[in-house]
């Protein structure tokens, strides 16, 4: 028997172990299904800002970084010769940064429910463990620095931890800068890119936008060291530094992709709160209308007839309310300040009323209300209330005059007016022209992220299992900060960049199934 067992059973067993490996005709694992075309993905380096870093939900945390578009792309590049992709991972999934043990940035948002079961963003609880003085050692393939503007990438010392408390340096770059005086570009080049992506310039307009236009349009000022953090970068400054950056990246023969700047109107940070955000019943509306009747019918026509304001401005400054949803009252710094004039004859208004009317108007559908304003609308301006009470106005009546967005106009930073949007669009258009021209002149892939996100924002993009839209919380594309994508949104972004790369270089890198990437994270572990 033993003989038979040896001669028949053992070879049969051996045959089995071999035969058990089924083979596909075109096996992905063999590395022959996809091609890199004329591109060389062996060392991919991604340069940019928070979007490149994988920032989401108002913070940088590990799973967000793992779902950054460069990391998603690198996994796909690996199917056609792509190499390892390392990222400067933070220490936890809370996302807050500390400096010497003191927390300097918030933890991430999660979707929590309040006591009534209503969902909304809230900060994840926990003590963050990412201290920016614990510098991680590169070189890294992902050199995305949250908060970076175009000119920051070539600024020495942007990662100097000593400059973080004064705002001279960036805490996210301080975490992984190769030395105190390093530049983002220098550290990117240290990773020897054979292929790169560059997505920078968003913050050159976005911080102005998210601040409600509180910054300054620096067009004409060529010295970025004089810029405030919420200012719009001069388009020539942008063109100059962007061109430098591209030159540095292509100098050693690397190929790559340049990504343009999406519209601020594509992100839920500006599209979630409607400009008609004030619900009123008929009685309140009538009371308010009565209070503004003299302003509408006497003050404004009077000022127009004196030539102090134009007829158009007089029309734009009309304040009317009705039962239902009403436009928000705002203080628009682009309007003529009438506070001094209306204190004189023939109006003779008191200083407080004059202050209220100084640059008063209601929003229109052309104004954008930032997400952060939602928390202010309809609340009481306590300082103003206290002022009124101290002037002898009964508390009940004072309270009616201190409702933010209704009787108390919102200040400039709470609304992005159509004029402020025009400043943004003008700069953005020039940035994008620069990006596209440099892609063309350097034979690089050009990624029209602006158009791609417009499609998401206007009707959405179908995928296996749903439609990706930019609706806040429910749309799937944007995280709970309303600005940065979810993993699914980043996966969509990765696919858009991969498409442009395939087109430029004749590669056949597959996109990813965005339905298998998550959206907002649920948790009631909140503060």
């Amino acid at each position, binding site marked *: *028997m033993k003989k*038979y*067992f040896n001669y*028949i*059973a053992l070879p*049969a*067993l051996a*045959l*089995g*172990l071999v*035969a*058990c*490996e*089924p*083979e*596909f*005709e*075109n*096996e*992905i*694992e063999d590395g022959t*299904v*996809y091609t890199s075309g004329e591109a060389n993905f062996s060392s991919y380096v991604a340069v940019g800002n928070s979007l490149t870093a994988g920032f989401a939900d108002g913070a940088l945390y*590990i*799973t967000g970084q*793992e779902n950054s578009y460069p990391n998603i792309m690198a996994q*796909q590049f690996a*199917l056609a010769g792509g190499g390892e992709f390392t990222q400067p991972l933070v220490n936890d*999934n809370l996302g807050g940064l500390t400096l010497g043990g003191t927390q300097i940035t918030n933890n991430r948002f*999660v*979707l*929590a*429910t309040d006591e009534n*079961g209503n*969902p909304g963003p809230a900060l*994840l609880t926990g003590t963050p463990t990412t201290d920016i003085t614990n510098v991680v050692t590169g070189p890294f393939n992902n050199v995305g620095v949250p908060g970076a503007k175009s000119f920051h990438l070539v600024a020495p010392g942007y990662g100097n931890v000593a400059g973080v408390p004064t705002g001279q340096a960036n805490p996210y770059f301080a975490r992984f800068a190769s030395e105190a005086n390093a530049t983002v570009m220098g550290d990117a080049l240290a990773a020897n890119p054979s292929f790169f992506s560059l997505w920078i310039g968003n913050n050159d307009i976005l911080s102005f936008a998210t601040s409600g236009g509180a910054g300054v349009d620096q067009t004409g000022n060529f010295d970025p060291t004089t810029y405030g953090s919420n200012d719009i970068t001069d388009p020539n400054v942008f063109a100059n530094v962007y061109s430098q950056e591209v030159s540095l990246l292509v100098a050693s023969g690397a190929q790559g992709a340049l990504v343009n700047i999406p519209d601020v109107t594509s992100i839920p940070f500006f599209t979630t709160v409607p400009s008609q955000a004030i619900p009123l019943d008929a009685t309140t509306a009538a009371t308010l209308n009565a209070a503004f009747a003299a302003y509408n019918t006497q003050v404004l026509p009077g000022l127009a007839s004196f030539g102090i304001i134009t007829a158009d401005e007089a029309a734009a400054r009309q304040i009317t309310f009705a039962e239902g949803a009403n436009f928000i009252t705002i203080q628009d710094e682009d309007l003529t300040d009438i506070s001094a004039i209306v204190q004189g004859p023939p109006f003779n208004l008191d200083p407080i009323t004059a202050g209220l009317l100084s640059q008063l108007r209601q929003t229109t559908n052309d104004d954008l209300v930032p997400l952060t304003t939602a928390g202010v609308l309809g609340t009481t301006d306590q300082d103003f209330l206290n002022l009124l009470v101290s002037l002898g106005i009964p508390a009940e009546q004072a309270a009616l005059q201190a409702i933010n967005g209704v009787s108390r106009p919102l200040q400039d930073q709470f609304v992005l007016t159509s004029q402020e949007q025009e400043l943004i669009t003008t700069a953005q258009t020039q940035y994008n022209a620069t990006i596209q021209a440099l892609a063309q002149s350097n034979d690089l892939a050009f990624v029209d992220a602006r158009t791609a996100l417009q499609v998401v924002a206007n009707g959405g993009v179908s995928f*296996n*299992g*749903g439609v990706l839209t930019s609706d806040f919380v429910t749309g799937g594309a944007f995280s709970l900060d309303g600005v940065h994508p979810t*993993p*699914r949104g980043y996966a969509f972004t990765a696919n858009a960049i991969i498409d442009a790369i395939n087109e430029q270089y004749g590669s056949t*890198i*597959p*996109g*990813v*199934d965005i*339905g*298998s*990437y*998550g*959206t907002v*994270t*649920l*948790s*009631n*572990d909140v503060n």
Partner: protein
Amino acid sequence: MKKVLSVIVLLLVCAVTYAGGYRVSLQGQRGLAMGHTGVAYVNSAEIAFFNPGGLVHLESKLSVSVGGFGVFSDVKYQNTEFGTSSQTDSPTGTPLYLYAAYKLSEKSSVALAVYTPYGSTVEYPTDWSGSHLVNSIELSAIFIQPIFSTKLTENVSFGGGPILAIGGVNFNRNLTRSLADTDGNRSNVEVDASGVKGYGFSVGGYAKFSDKWSFGVNYRSRIDIEVEQGEGTATFSNVPNSPLAPTTNGDFDFTATLPLPAEWTVGVTYKPTDKWVLNADVNYAEWDIYNSLDLNFLNADGSVALESINPRNYQNAWTLRLGAEYAVSDKFALRGGAYFDESPVQEGFFSPETPRNDSFGFTGGFSYNVTQKLAIDASFLYLTFREVDASYDAYTESGVEAPFAGTYRSSAFAPGLGLTYKL
């Protein structure tokens, strides 16, 4: 010998079996070596499984067949649209059988049959791209059946007996394609039940027309493995702490029904010479009872906390089998066979949990008579599936279908060893 036995004992330890479609046709060395035929072939106590009606024709007072198989199976998946690929790392399955027949008289026999006709072990890498459908599944069912067989006439007989089936299941999958906790751990459920009992029967008829020709028919009934409240545990893990999440972490009771379908077999045996035996069998499995795998997860008070509806829509399926035996000498017999196994899975319902398309099986084996009473049997099966582009379309998220599609290729190799004893 001792070594061989110890291997068999080892295999016995983990009584888990493999199948695509979860029917495992590995119920005897001699039958399997001949393409898993034998409804009309009275040769050993394996007839207790293949056809209780033929049992009474066994000539020995006592006939025993015992053995087992090692099943090495592989499933490969890839999706060229997205560049994803995966491969199972399934543990070796070990279907077993024991048949002991005792001749009461020339006219009647009794037998005890223990066998494992259903089972499945498929294990994918955790969190692979189809993990919302299955990470791993382990089905096992052991059938215990007393049998009575009697002759109506000298050449016509029938037999049958009740079946006690004891089943177990362990099934692990992620809740959705993307739900995870704040650390990115995928929300997961594992259901586990064992020792779940079901009841059924099998009956068969046998007719011998001449020394050369015989005919058999066998019917094995449907058996439902019904997991009742308290018989199993579903464990949810990594579910985010939120009332917006579909459930909460922890253990739940669950109910579920896994039907083991009825199976008809008819076949003929032809013996052209003293040395040759030729078998042809046809199986018809009534898989259409497997409409949907529905799990209800229960609260402590027995109310349904969450339900999981998983449409399967299986269809009845045929298997066509051919086998041959050649007696080389008094001591040595060689066998070979082949079969075509039609998949019960319909288009659009191809789930990675039972990745079964049509397959071809090739079998072979031998028996060696150590003594007049004792023989050693060995066999093997090589089961090969064509490469197939398939999808499971019935998975939904928020009411929207999210098909899981790709290319599959599977194969299985099952060598077996057994003993036949006749007194």
